[in-house]
């Protein structure tokens, strides 16, 4: 199993580098732009905080983007949330199905490994990829804070990154289950789901009737503006996330074990 895990990590390394460096560097550039925009921020902050539902959706009614904390939460929070969610979906939705899609399945399945072992290695690979992605982005953002020399509440920052990681794991759990269904490439579905989850969260924060159902979506407990305003811990959302993650992984194991493998 260790050999499969090692191979999977190497096969996905390029993806990891492209996505983590892109999202991390984009976040870093945004952080560095804060200094050059600082002067104009005050007026912008006033304008943004009075845009009704829009301000609510992006957390600008509770956080001032004139502060680094508020700027990070509203700008980089959205970039990282969407970028990491798309990465999680892309990695997980192909991790199982790619073997059959690329016809490498007969080679892998003819090696002395049970389907459970193969799936364990692949699931671990996804988890490791997401942890590494989060670590790389965290380093980029910390570098940005350090270059700016501005004060940043690191406890809230790390809480944000940890909840983003949980959100990524939840999305990956759903995509892993989908990946076990057939041996077809479903990259489009994965990306579509990532965007759908994000859109659901934004809509949920704009439309009052949807607000009470926000906890269903994976972005609900990872919202930067809520974390940086130290809002109440979204227990229901986190419990749902853990449940969805566990169910997704268990379903993938159950279904993958009972179906025929395509050549």
């Amino acid at each position, binding site marked *: 199993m260790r050999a499969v895990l090692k191979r999977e990590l190497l096969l996905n390394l390029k993806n990891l580098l492209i996505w983590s460096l892109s999202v991390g560097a984009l976040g870093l550039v945004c952080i560095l732009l804060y200094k050059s925009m600082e002067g104009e921020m005050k007026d912008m902050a006033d304008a943004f905080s009075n845009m009704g539902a829009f301000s609510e959706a992006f957390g600008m009614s509770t956080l001032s983007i004139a502060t680094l904390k508020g700027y990070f939460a509203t700008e980089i929070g959205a970039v990282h949330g969407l970028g990491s969610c798309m990465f999680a979906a892309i990695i997980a939705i192909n991790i199982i199905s790619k073997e059959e899609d690329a016809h*490498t399945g*007969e080679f892998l399945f003819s090696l002395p490994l049970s389907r459970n072992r193969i799936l364990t290695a692949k699931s671990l690979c996804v988890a490791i990829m997401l942890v590494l992605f989060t670590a790389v982005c965290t380093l980029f953002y910390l570098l940005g804070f350090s270059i700016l020399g501005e004060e940043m509440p690191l406890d809230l920052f790390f809480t944000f990154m940890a909840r983003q990681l949980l959100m990524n794991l939840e999305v990956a759990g759903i995509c892993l289950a989908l990946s076990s269904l057939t041996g077809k490439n479903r990259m489009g579905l994965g990306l579509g789901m990532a965007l759908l989850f994000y859109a659901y969260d934004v809509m949920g924060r704009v439309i009052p009737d949807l607000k009470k159902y926000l906890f269903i979506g994976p972005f609900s407990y990872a919202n930067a503006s809520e974390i940086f305003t130290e809002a109440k811990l979204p227990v229901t959302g986190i419990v749902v996330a853990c449940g969805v993650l566990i169910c997704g992984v268990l379903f993938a194991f159950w279904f993958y074990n009972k179906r025929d493998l395509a050549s």
Partner: protein
Amino acid sequence: MKENVIEISHLTKSYGKNRGVIDVSLNVKEGDIFGFLGPNGAGKSTTIRSMLGFLKINSGNIRILGMDSVKDHEKILKNVGYMPSEAWFYDSLKVADVIKYAADVRGLNCSEEAGKLCERLKVDTHKKIKQLSLGNRKKVSIVCAMQHRPRLFIFDEPTGGLDPLMQKKFFELINEYVAQGATCLLSTHVLSEVDKYCKNAAIMREGRLTMLDTPHIDDETFLSFYEEEEG
């Protein structure tokens, strides 16, 4: 008396409403080179893929090397060298990496045997998989199937894409391993291969298996199996 290495009894496998194989029973004895003939879609690959646990069978029982194909799946695969009809590997890897990967998963150091095989089959281990032709990918597949010196070889249309010299070398290798105690199941369309190398043979038609009295059948008898299906 030699033991059965493959024991299939009343195997039935369907794909939803589509026929796969129906009530197939087959025994292959130790040291045999068993020819497995049949037209496209007759059920040869379904039988092989059921033996290897890729497919979930509807009914019947398969024992390989005295072990149950479902319960002892991993143990069986440790002692089997399988070469699929289409040799696909991870494109971005080098040939040497693929061969080592197959050995690593088995927890074995097969570098010596793999080196010998690569030399005999003229496999360039420095090339990337995506640079290889079908024939060269097939040679890599042969090395992966043989390097751990398994007790049972299962080859699914192995010689397609190989040049005549490589085909000859491939059968020389099979004969050498069989002489050392291995067994071989050879699924093929090429009657001359069965005639020349196999000790026993069976033919599949429309999902059903018929044992042949002898692997040395003439072209007309052989083609009649195909024609009858078309008719």
